[in-house]
């Protein structure tokens, strides 16, 4: 007889470890364990048979893979955690004894650690890191806007700000921004970095309420990792674009001179610039996003190379298969989109969110400036005759320039999403803006498409250039037509009623010819539907569940879309009715 097997000494029970056990095994406190897990990207696992893993107990526990914990055991950062603990203890003791010199000495030797190796380990390839950039960007953009109030390390906030600015510079330099969306939560941006979609959100530029139900230690641990990762990614990205990594603005000193001819203004400008010192100034100019970055010397050669490549591609174009042609077309569209605002000179009023707007306009090749007193980095003044668009977000009081369009900021966002410059009608100051639609919605499979989106699609195809020409006029025309129709309709109805009356009066005592049984000859659609119904009955049970699930989902989607269209229709009808009423009232008056 063999040895009696004990329970829970093999199988699933040995593969998992509870969180408490893991802490003990690593000799870490829970807080340190948490930090380590965040940095190393270790997450718990849900065992299939929880009771078996829990050795018969049913208490609720968090389980980790034993292998993961064993992997953590070798982490050099753990030692640094311990050193830090000792450091804190020593410092406390020294301070309690009022030994200032010793305390200072201890403070100077504060243990620091780097997490480069962790970044490398978690993202063995560069593209992995790019793929995982979303959360890092969101977090850094949030931290860059947090107040330097002592709750967080100021260095962290500064670093986040620096990194985010650098990232935006990269996007501008490569013109890789694809989609923008203004949500009530903030600005969503989607860029294509190394042909990976990267989406991030920037909060609206107002102070946050400091929340009480948020553990900022967790957040700052995440940020610690994200800043390191983002920094390395940015370094590599800048390298691929032949840019200096800590970004440099070429000829920074010349900027001041070239800008304004007016002496007075220049003086004022110098005054403003004297508000911040030289170090800050360079940072601020970089952060204004309004200057192209300095490239390495040999960049020009590469550009030439790129031009040559394009020529080669043009030559190659002739012998392409269909799919390749499609790709080609797609890339051409992309290139077109990149040059969306090229040749446009835009001026931002001070109520417009500057950073986001500058970022978007510059990413699509436009020139942009703002009032010189609103911030550093403006390149031309409001009275420049070459300005094509001025972005305004409040009622206009001053005298407008005739040579430029005055538009609301939504025009920029909508144009970017439509991949073309939309007609400015409807976006002028004081206009009721058309709805701002999300570019992230998948419109396939019978999903609901709002009528505004359909209009934009039509515009993109170039089908109906006059559709946005003048809504009011159109609606007026509609109204007049409708009224006519109504009148006609009323007449018709009366006629019909008369006819019916006549019919009713005639006697019914007669043998009516029998009707043909409609059921006997089904139309082909009905037959096909019945055939399908019968075939569905024969789906094997296993697949029928799946089939029914899919069908259920489809039906739900359809229902939702239907609800939305109904709602829209009701709203539109109501609008029309009120407009008509007003018009009638006017006419009566």
């Amino acid at each position, binding site marked *: 007889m063999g040895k009696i097997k004990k329970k829970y000494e093999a199988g699933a029970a040995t593969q998992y470890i509870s969180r408490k056990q893991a802490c003990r095994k690593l000799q870490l406190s829970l807080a340190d364990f948490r930090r380590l897990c965040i940095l190393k990207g270790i*997450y718990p696992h849900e065992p299939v048979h929880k009771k078996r893993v829990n050795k018969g107990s049913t208490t609720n526990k968090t389980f980790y893979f034993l292998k993961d914990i064993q992997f953590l055991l070798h982490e050099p950062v753990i030692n640094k955690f311990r050193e830090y603990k000792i450091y804190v203890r020593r410092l406390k003791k020294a301070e309690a004894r009022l030994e200032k010199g010793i305390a200072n000495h201890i403070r100077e030797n504060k243990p620091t650690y780097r997490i480069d190796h962790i970044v490398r380990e978690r993202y063995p390839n560069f593209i992995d890191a790019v793929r995982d950039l979303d959360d890092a960007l*969101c977090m850094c953009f949030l931290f860059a806007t947090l107040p330097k109030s002592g709750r967080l390390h100021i260095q962290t906030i500064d670093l986040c700000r620096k990194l985010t600015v650098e990232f935006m510079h990269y996007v501008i330099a490569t013109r890789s921004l694809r989609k923008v969306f203004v949500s009530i939560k903030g600005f969503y941006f989607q860029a294509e970095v190394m042909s990976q979609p990267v989406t991030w959100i920037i909060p609206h530029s107002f102070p946050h*309420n400091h929340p009480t139900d*948020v553990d900022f230690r967790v957040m700052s641990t995440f940020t610690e990792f994200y800043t390191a990762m983002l920094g390395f990614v940015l370094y590599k990205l800048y390298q691929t674009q032949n840019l200096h990594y800590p970004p440099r603005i070429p000829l920074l000193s010349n900027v001041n001179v070239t800008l304004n001819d007016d002496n007075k203004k220049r003086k004022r400008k110098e005054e403003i610039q004297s508000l911040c010192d030289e170090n800050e100034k360079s940072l601020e100019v970089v952060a204004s996003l309004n200057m192209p970055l300095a490239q390495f010397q040999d960049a020009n050669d590469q550009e030439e190379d790129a031009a040559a490549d394009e020529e080669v591609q043009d030559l190659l174009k002739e012998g392409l298969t269909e799919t390749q042609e499609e790709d080609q077309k797609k890339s051409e569209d992309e290139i077109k989109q990149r040059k969306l605002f090229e040749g446009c000179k835009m001026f931002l009023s001070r109520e417009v969110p500057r950073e986001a707007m500058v970022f978007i306009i510059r990413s699509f090749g436009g020139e942009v400036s703002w009032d010189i007193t609103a911030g550093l980095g403006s390149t031309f003044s409001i009275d420049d005759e070459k300005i094509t668009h001025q972005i305004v977000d409040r009622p206009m009081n001053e005298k407008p320039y005739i040579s430029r369009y005055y538009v609301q900021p939504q025009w920029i966002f909508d144009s970017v999403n439509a991949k073309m410059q939309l007609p400015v009608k409807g976006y002028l100051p004081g206009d009721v803006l058309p*709805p701002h639609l999300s570019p992230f919605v998948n419109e396939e499979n019978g999903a609901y498409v709002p009528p505004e989106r359909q209009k934009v699609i039509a515009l993109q195809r170039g089908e109906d250039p006059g559709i946005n020409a003048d809504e009011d006029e159109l609606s007026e025309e509609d109204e007049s037509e409708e009224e006519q129709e109504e009148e006609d309709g009323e007449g018709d109805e009366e006629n019909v009623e008369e006819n019916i009356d006549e019919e009713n009066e005639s006697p019914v005592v007669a043998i009516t010819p029998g009707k043909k049984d409609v059921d006997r000859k089904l139309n082909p659609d009905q037959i096909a539907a019945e055939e399908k119904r019968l075939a569905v009955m024969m789906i094997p049970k296993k697949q029928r569940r799946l089939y029914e699930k899919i069908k259920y989902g489809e039906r739900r989607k359809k229902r939702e879309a239907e609800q939305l269209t109904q709602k829209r229709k009701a709203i539109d009808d109501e609008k029309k009715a009120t407009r008509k009423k007003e018009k009638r009232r006017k006419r009566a008056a």
Partner: protein
Amino acid sequence: MKAKKRQFLEENTSLSLNQESLFPSKGKLDIDDEDSSDESVVESSDEEVLEKETEYFNKLQAKSAQTIEKPYSSDVDDDVSDDEDLRNTVGNIPMEWYENFPHIGYDLDGRTISKPIRNQDELDKFLDKMENKNYWRTVHDKQTGRDHVLTSEELQLIQRLKKGSFYTSGIDPHEPYVDFFTHEKMIHPVTNIPEHKRSFTPSIIEKRKVGKLVHAIKMGWLKPRKPKTDESEEPKFYDLWEETESKTPTNSELARQKMAIPAPKTQLPGHEASYNPPPEYLPSQEEIDKWKEDDEDERKLDFIPEKFDSLRQVPQYPTFIQERFSRCLDLYLCPRQRKMKVMVNPEELIPNLPKPKDLQPFPTFQALCYKGHKAMVRTISVDSTGQWLASGSDDGIIRVWEVATSRCLREITTLGDQPVKCVSWCPNKSVCLLAVALENKIVIINPSIGDKLIYSATDSLLQSFQPLADEETTNKQESEKSNAVIPPWKTVETGLPYQDGQRLVITHPKDVSKVTWHAKGDYLACVVPGNGHAQVFLHQLTKQRSQTPFTKCKGAVQSVLFHPTRPFLFVATQQYVRVYNLVKQQLTKKLMANSKWISSLAIHPGGDNLLVGSYDCRLSWFDMDLSTKPYKTMRYHKRAIRSCCYHPKYPLFASGGDDGNVVVSHGMVYSDLMQNPLIVPVKVLKGHKVERNLGVLDCCFHPHQPWIFSSAADKTIRLFT
């Protein structure tokens, strides 16, 4: 002018200084230098005096220079000396306070100092100015109320103070320094204690301290302070992935990479998240209320869509940080799992079947409706010629219909008002007989319909029967042996029942639920549920005798069926169908129906395939050569299946259920044994209404046309062609 002035000053240098006369009340203050406040007061008074003095001086200079040349007479000095003992003790107070008093203070002895009578008007003043030689050096002392003529010493003092030099003229500010303590060397020391030894030897404590430090340095414990650099605080970035391309990962690294599940990306916002969404995405008040009431997990959106007229009106999202934080929590607290998402086109799941159009003929629409029954029609049967249809309803009436015209030809009402459980035509074409299961009896009826030769021959056949004596005894013996009651046969010869067609009555101990004929029409099998072990009875018509084939019976028998060609009997209990060989008298097969409660049985005319309908909506097709498990299970009906049947000629089968539908399917059985039967549903026949949760109760095919009859709880029988 300047020269004159200098001359005048030089002349007056010899005058002695009279301090006390100038500052009578502050003579002590010079000694008491430390009191700074008093000092400042003195200075201020000095300044005042100085100002006045200079004023006068200038005036005088302007007036005449000649008067100055004369030395001053000594009588002026006498006046001053008179005043010397006159001192006011009120202190340094504003003298305006004494304006309304006759006196201006008190002298050292405590006597009042009366105000001098000075009623000088402007003229007097002018005259005084003109005449008095000393007017320019006269100062009014407010404290004493007297005029005081400054002496030349006093004037000199004033000049000195004005220049900022010393108070007295005799002090040399640049005297050679004399070291007070050591310029005289003493011959005796201050202390005479001899020096201690330790002041000559090196300190041990220091040595130890130094030793410790040296040791610490040697051991590397003590390090020089690091140079402070700002750059060290900022993280430095470099090309982290430089070597990855060249380096091949180890196996463990590869395993980790393989196991790692990247975090799912957050869902991207839809139109409803816009700051200016289309109006159809804005919730109504009810929806907002519902959103607020709902649990956080149940909400479809985690925010209420809002509309703002312009971008500048959009406020900060109040829970932005919380949202990020919850994402962080998700990232490090949520278990991750790979979920396989099925990307299937639902159309691909539908099996590719031959089109029903190609499988004709089959019944497609309702042709006739047989109305007449007053209660639900539980059972129907078509005779072998296909001309007559018999039906039995719950009020105990049996009707025989002409199939082609839906005319009711016979109505047999004499059986009582108990529900007719089962009717069945005798499949033998040479006789015209109908077996009816009613209460605990089986009644054999000759409905006298159709060919007169046949039905009269049937009667004569029944009458010619001669029971054998020994058979009766054997019957009795058998019954004793099997311990069951052999049901007695009774011949009906006269009366109303005879006129109605009743010929034979077989009485059973309990209610009969089902009766079925053998294909040759001689044997009858019936089910008597609840009759212990003898639930199945076999009756032979020609010999008018009965037997119970089973000595024991497992489970409640639901249905029995004869094999069309071979001596097999199918007995369906609730979950199994047992196949007995009647010749060998043994169980040959036990089929598992995979259902909870079998309701009906039908056998393919070929005899190798069996159809089993059950109350749990399943219709199972058994290929008896293949397996004891169903070849195919179909769920055509949403509710219980009540009956199923095969067409005797066409490859068709049908099932009727409580959902009121009859589903006709094409069921082709190939003679090639290697090919499985082809089953294709071809038509769902609708028309019957569902009453009291009962729909189609029975269905049967026409013997040689592709027609199907169905009877239902809505008291009708319908023919679909």
